[in-house]
């Protein structure tokens, strides 16, 4: 986590104070929380239906540096939910489109576009640059890899997921709370890459994921680390499920807090 004693820590400028004036008045956030966000690097794994609103809300909140990792080009079927994309970008790399959208919104934010999904080759290096990771990938192989690397490096993770009009969010504090592998120790046999979803669901789930991330980064209260948040966006119902670490978890079973 970014802290005032971190090398290179940047103080808030008059422009920052003007931009974030409304949220500086949020109790237990204030200038201290804003300064933490300014000095935070967040890695977003994929900027699709979930990752787009995640990246956009992180930028809105004032996170100073974003790393957006996503391979592949924009297709027409992405445009019902991938809100950092634009139709004139069809056929071009999605990470670059997301970067351009965010930099039009907040030019002062540093955005690194990585034209690749998370793999064994890049996971460790990307996580090492991040203070927090948001996992929004569609394949469990990628999600498990990101979970493993976050636990190994002690980097907080917010795992966000969706299907149809449902969603789930799992904030993970490595070594303290249940990780993704504690809940799903093996690859789900029924999961399919393409699934039904409406963009409002991905936006709601992504925004809740960012709220949980802000709580992990700052002194905002009410973190749901140690719980899985299940969201039913059709009936507007939210359930918070207590999840315990598994002592026999192959990923986090032997780790302690960093």
């Amino acid at each position, binding site marked *: 986590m970014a802290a005032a004693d971190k090398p290179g820590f940047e103080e808030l400028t008059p422009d920052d104070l003007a931009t974030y004036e409304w949220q500086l008045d949020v109790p237990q956030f204030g200038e201290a929380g804003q300064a933490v966000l300014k000095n935070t690097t967040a890695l977003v794994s*994929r900027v*699709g*239906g*979930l*990752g787009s609103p995640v990246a956009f809300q992180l930028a809105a909140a004032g996170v100073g540096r974003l790393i957006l990792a996503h391979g592949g080009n924009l297709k027409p079927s992405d445009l019902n939910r991938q809100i950092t994309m634009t139709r004139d970008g069809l056929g071009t790399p999605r990470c670059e489109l997301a970067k351009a959208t965010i930099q039009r919104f907040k030019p002062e934010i540093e955005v690194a576009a990585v034209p690749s999904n998370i793999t064994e080759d890049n996971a460790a290096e990307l996580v090492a640059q991040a203070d927090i990771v948001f*996992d*929004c*990938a*569609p*394949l*469990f192989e990628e*999600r498990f890899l990101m979970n493993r690397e976050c636990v190994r490096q002690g980097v907080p993770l917010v795992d*966000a*997921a*969706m*299907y*149809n009009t*449902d*969603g*789930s969010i799992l904030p993970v504090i490595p070594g303290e709370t*249940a990780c993704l592998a504690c*809940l*799903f*120790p*093996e*690859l*789900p*046999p*029924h*999961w399919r*890459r*393409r*699934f*039904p*979803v409406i963009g409002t669901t*991905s936006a709601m789930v992504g925004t809740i994921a960012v709220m949980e991330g802000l709580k992990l980064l700052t002194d905002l209260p009410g973190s749901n680390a140690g719980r*899985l948040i*299940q969201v*039913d966006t*059709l*009936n507007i119902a939210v*359930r*918070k*499920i*207590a*999840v*315990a670490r*598994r002592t026999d978890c192959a990923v986090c079973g032997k780790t302690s807090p960093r």
Partner: protein
Amino acid sequence: MKIQFVLSGQVAHQAGCSQSQLEVAAGTPLGEALAAFGAGLPTAAAAYLDDATLFVAVDGEHAPDRERLLPEGTREVLIMSPMAGG
């Protein structure tokens, strides 16, 4: 006791509903209650109940142990298929 079964993700999609009630005797093992519930679901949805990666929670607490006994007063069982991004 009447238990509310809440379905989420692929299993809900296949079942065509997100909630249903079932009468379950106190002390019934969770696995037996799931099997009884699954007997009333379409075959495609019931298949998900045998999936080892199915996430199950009882009254707001993750319940990975299917041998766990459902105590008197149990109100809700959440059944959620794993989900991801996209």
